[in-house]
């Protein structure tokens, strides 16, 4: 789902490209509706039924308070996001420009391959499932930070030595070099990392909540998993998915504005890199 939505975001505001996107969306919803005819509404709800239960969830008619659980999940995502970006950026720059990179590259690569579920189980065993932030945030940060670090690392490596030589020949201060060369050169990578971090933080917080929390959207999803209610799982996920989609899109627009210096918008740097 994310890949599909992500693609749509990248199209930006070129209206010619909206049309095909719209067709795809209609085709997707049509297919959904068609498939739902062959399943019980509890397994795969039709569009109308889905809209109804989603509305009931959001309006607070469900047995779990949407505001309460969504708020907790949002806080966890935001807190994780801040940690991920700060730690990831510092690690990435260190890997890219400093002599300590040899010490960091292998550990970061190993962390990158470590499944989030394993983190979740380990941390729940060590710290229990009752912490409000600690377990979920830690799992998310541990799982997502390596992606950001690698992304920023590539950015730091791509900084042009010739520009630094120019800066030295004109006696620019270290502050000026950071402000006018390092930070702007890393900007595209910071934006793409930020969007990636948001998308992954949302998914992984949910995974972590399923295993490690008694509150939050992941917890509710887990409850309905136990109750064998696929329709409720989907209904609980949709509002957050839409919110994440909106945030992704907003970030993308801010990003485009800040790159007015580029002759034409090229998405090479800002493409989300999950590899």
């Amino acid at each position: 789902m994310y890949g599909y939505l992500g693609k749509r975001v990248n199209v930006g505001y070129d209206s010619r490209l909206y049309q095909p996107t719209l067709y795809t969306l209609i085709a997707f919803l049509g297919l959904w509706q068609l498939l739902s005819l062959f399943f019980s509404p509890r397994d795969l709800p039709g569009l109308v039924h889905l809209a109804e239960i989603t509305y009931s969830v959001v309006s607070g008619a469900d047995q779990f308070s949407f505001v309460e659980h969504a708020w907790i999940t949002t806080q966890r995502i935001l807190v994780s996001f801040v940690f991920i970006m700060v730690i990831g950026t510092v690690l990435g720059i260190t890997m890219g420009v400093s002599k300590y990179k040899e010490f960091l590259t292998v550990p970061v690569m190993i962390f990158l391959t470590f499944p989030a579920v394993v983190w979740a189980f380990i941390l729940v065993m060590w710290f229990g499932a009752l912490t409000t932030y600690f377990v979920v945030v830690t799992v998310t940060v541990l799982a997502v930070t390596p992606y950001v670090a690698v992304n920023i690392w590539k950015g730091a490596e791509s900084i042009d030595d010739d520009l630094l030589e120019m800066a030295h020949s004109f006696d620019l201060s270290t502050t000026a070099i950071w402000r006018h060369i390092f930070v702007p050169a890393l900007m595209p990578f910071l934006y793409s990392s930020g969007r990636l971090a948001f998308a992954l933080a949302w998914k992984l917080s949910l995974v972590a909540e399923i295993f490690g929390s008694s509150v939050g959207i992941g917890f509710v999803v887990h409850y309905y998993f136990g109750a064998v209610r696929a329709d409720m799982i989907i209904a609980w996920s949709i509002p957050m998915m839409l919110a994440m989609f909106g945030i992704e899109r907003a970030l993308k627009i801010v990003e485009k504005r800040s790159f007015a210096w580029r002759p034409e918008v090229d998405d090479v740097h800002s493409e989300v890199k999950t590899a």
Partner: protein
Amino acid sequence: MVNRTIASEGDDLMSIHVTNLSKTFTEDEGEELVVLDDIDVTVGDGEFYTVMGPSGCGKSTLLNILAGTIPMDRGEIEYAGSPISPTDLPVGYVFQEPRLLNWRTVGENVDLVLRERDLSKSQREERIVDVLEMVGLHDERESYPLRLSGGMRQRVGIARALAVDPSILLMDEPFSSLDELTARNLRDDLLDLWKSTEKTIIFVTHDISEAVYLSESVTFLDTRGRIFHQSEIEHDRPREPDDPALLETEAALMKTFFDHMATIQSV
């Protein structure tokens, strides 16, 4: 071999004397690469001084040392009659590539090198306007570099170097990546600037006709890191790029160059 006549002229107060300059790089495999081997350079005040030599002979290294971006191993530099550290030489550097910050406008790129100096905002403003005027880019102040042509970007590079009001302009093959027509325009503009500002220019090029067209003096470096020839170019100005007299000088210099390369290769 080095021509000392300029040094002996007493009125060249702001001349540069480099003596016994050496630089050796240690390559990744640990091998020593002698790039500059005990060279002496004398550049008179306001002179247009060109350094020529084959690729990799150390021309950029020489300029980088004068700009203070890499340290020399050995040698002395004297400027205006007293010893000076290369980091204190009043230079502006123009590179082969424009080396602009693509995320800053033309005006901001120039302003960047002014901010580090003790200048008021209005003084900076005046400088920016001045130098952009000098290179004919006053209308492009708000443009981003990537929207300009290669020749215009190189002009911004020149404006930036002029902005710090250096007595010495270091230019490392500044026109070599431009098409010939654009390069010719820029060369003429550079000569006009040189004449009006009376700056000392130390210019590096591969291109013998460019060297003869522009310079008062041409110095040849060889691959062993030594200066093996220096010529004064005495043709009257303004010069014509395809003037047969210039072509003759070029041919004579090329012959000297190839003869020398043949002797060092046969050793």
